[in-house]
């Protein structure tokens, strides 16, 4: 799966869970500061991403996923 494909999958999840406009999703965007994803919604994003990409994202890893790019890299590596 390419980084673009993962990003488009994350954008779908972010739209569904937190109402983020897919056009706003980019690798350098921070989940909390730029996309306004609150802590509880971030948990939902992680669980949905695990399901969509067939990966495991441990809770202690989530705090390192500050930006969309961080999440893409983790999913790419874990997938």
């Amino acid at each position, binding site marked *: 799966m390419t980084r673009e494909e993962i990003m488009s999958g994350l954008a779908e999840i972010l739209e569904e*869970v*937190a*109402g983020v406009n897919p056009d706003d999703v980019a690798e350098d965007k921070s989940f909390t500061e730029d996309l306004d994803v609150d802590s*509880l*919604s971030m*948990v*939902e994003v992680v*669980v949905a991403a695990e399901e969509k990409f067939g990966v495991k994202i441990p809770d202690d890893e989530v705090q390192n996923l500050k930006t969309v790019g961080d999440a893409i890299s983790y999913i790419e590596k874990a997938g």
Partner: protein
Amino acid sequence: MASPVDVVVTGLGATTPLGGDVASTWDAMLAGRSGVSALTEDWAEPLPVRIAAQLAVDPAEVLDRVKLRRMDRAEAIAVIAAREAWRDAGLADAGLDPERLAVSIGTGIGGAITLLKQDDILESSGPRRVSPHTVPMLMPNGPAACVGLELGAKAGVHSVASACATGAEAIALGLDLIRSGRADVVVAGGTESVIAPLPIAGFAAMRAMSTRNDEPQRASRPWDKGRDGFVLGEGAGVVVLERADHAAARGARVYARLAGAGITSDAYDMVQPHVDGQTRAMRRALADAGLSGQDIAHVNTHATSTPTGDMVEVASVRAAVGTHPVLTATKSMTGHLLGAAGAVESIATILAVRDGVVPPTINLDDPDDELDLPVAAHTARRMEIPAALNNAFGFGGHNVALVFTRA
């Protein structure tokens, strides 16, 4: 002894089985429409009760999708009603100090639908799939907290719980908050949405609900000889209470005065009502308002269409107020909104006072022989209403009476 602090109602909001706002709800009430219908979902099929008064306007038509998925339905409708009341009061651009704004919104049962749904997810898919919004969605202070966040209230967010008296007690608390100087404006009311198999099975097991499944619109029939229990409804009602001089200073439109409140408990039985506690609540409310029974022209009763409760309340009104007030039971149209009942019925009482009209009690075809007080049966009754009472009673022996007087 009446309080030196005058409290008035400057805004109203509601979403009910009769309409998605106050105007449509009030129009439907005056027209004597029933909000009760058959439950056609598969889950209702094995239940002894297959009727309910469901919201006229689904919250999904009003709130955006993302907001809605983080709120229990009871929270969502509280927010919808509060927004309407807030706009109606003209407070959106009034520059109100947030530290002078409080919220008092309760629920009788809380986020039961969320609890049940997430328990299903837990059983079927495991703990990791349980929504992280579960706890904020099911906690009973959730609706008050949602409204507090929405409006930016910083003087305190309160959520009383007294079963079917909740909405009225929340308004009584709002009165106290303003009188004691802790807030200038209180957004107060109640909300409930538990039309689901377990709550229905639970109430049905108490033999408290009507089983007139073949005639949904005729099922809620307070004081009628054929009454056989209440009809479960869902809805939310919110009023904006404001210190009278605060309202006057900003030129706010005033619906009515909240002149007094009376709260008592029976210490008698968990679920059976008692004349003594109800009578004392109405007397306290009258004393608090500095009025006597003679001053009360109309009572919006708690009457839920149960064989016992309806007539106990008539005896209480007779003892506390007299034989002159014109009664109505708007639950004949809305069904029983549980924690929202006292709030939606307060709104009906406020509008009755303002407009000089008692909304009808529908389905009162064959009145109970002991019903010896006047009732606005079948059709609305136009009359002068300088002062009116709203009663709300709840399982646990809670009795609340509110007095509204003409502005």
